[in-house]
């Protein structure tokens, strides 16, 4: 079953454009509202993602570290929302280039406002593509979906303290996950 696209009027900039069955988005392109602190939260900065560059994936870009608490069963904190446009409808696999800093690490992901999924990391000592969702404790499956032509949204949410994320990708070609430095997709012109 295809995920339906959302209304154009409900989409705001930026909107990334899929091309040739692939979409790559750097998480740092969604700026954080500021540096979280107890005091700044009263001014509306509740987002506990931290922009860092100490252990870069590709050398020149920041990544985000979840500086909030472990939230085993509670998605919704530190939302990072990315809108994009699909021109080539079909089956895609989602992956998040990530790195675990603890025994286990993961984040939450959902597509087009549907249910949240746990996306476990797959790299403790190095950056790697997390591209499976957890379907029950210890059970995973490829994070595949059918996407209709039109506008869609991926939302990431913090789960494991210290989990690092660099970029996410939707691709029709699983061999893309062998590459960590695929260039970011372009933004759709208004």
């Amino acid at each position, binding site marked *: 079953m295809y995920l339906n696209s959302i209304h154009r009027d409900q989409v705001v900039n930026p909107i990334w454009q899929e091309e040739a069955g692939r979409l790559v988005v750097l998480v740092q392109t969604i700026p954080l509202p500021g540096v979280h602190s107890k005091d700044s939260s009263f001014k509306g900065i509740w987002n506990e993602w931290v922009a860092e560059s100490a252990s870069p994936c590709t050398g020149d870009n920041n990544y985000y570290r979840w500086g909030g*608490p472990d*939230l085993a*069963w*509670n998605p*919704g904190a530190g939302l990072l929302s990315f809108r994009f446009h699909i021109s080539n409808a079909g089956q895609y696999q989602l992956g998040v280039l990530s790195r675990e800093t603890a025994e286990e690490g993961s984040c939450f992901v959902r597509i087009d406002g549907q*249910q949240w999924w746990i996306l476990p990391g797959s790299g403790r000592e190095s950056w790697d593509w997390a591209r499976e969702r957890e379907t029950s404790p210890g059970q995973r499956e490829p994070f595949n979906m059918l996407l209709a032509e039109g506008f869609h949204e991926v*939302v990431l949410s913090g789960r494991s303290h210290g989990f690092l994320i660099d970029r996410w990708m939707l691709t029709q070609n699983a061999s893309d996950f062998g590459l960590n430095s695929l260039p970011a997709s372009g933004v759709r012109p208004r």
Partner: protein
Amino acid sequence: MSHEHPPVFVEKNGRVLFDIAASPLAGIFTPEAAYKGIWNEWSAETEIAGYTGDCYYRWAGPDVKWNAGLGVLTYYFFIDEPGVYQITMRTLSRDGEPGRPRANGAFMRFNGQQWHKVKSKEHGEWSWNFMYEHYHDPSELNPSRVPCLRHFDHGIHRMEISGRQNGMILDRVAIAQQGVEAHNLALPVSDSFSHPERTLPW
């Protein structure tokens, strides 16, 4: 699970009233149910007498002092007469007791704007005492808490509540112009109509 066309409660004579259960829960949370999409850790309960509707909601999730956005409950209301309204919530709050951490707060926001921390300063009994906390200074006696006053234009508005402290209990919401009676438990909830547009979860 959110309604696609949720109820919009209508302000009349300077007052909107609705029960917390007007935002339905997707089901009973368990770690197993989470994998089927039931992440919301509000628990609909009736064990404690004195609630006004069919049940009250208790935040059964973790303490998340600085992380708004968990277990979001969404409500819509229509303001006919624009002006300044005070938002109050009927709650059952718990002060810090030995072995039982404090549970007196939640997060609240309107129309997708910034989250605010809201707290009660009356504990152990149902009360309508609910205020913004705009900063925190434990050396003072609740100096940072101010009434939740907000100007609403004519039209439909969205209110969201998010869990903060395990054990906090919410029962009813009142949005009323100052001087308008809103806390009389004999008052019925406001009339409502279905939201004219399909609402999306973001």
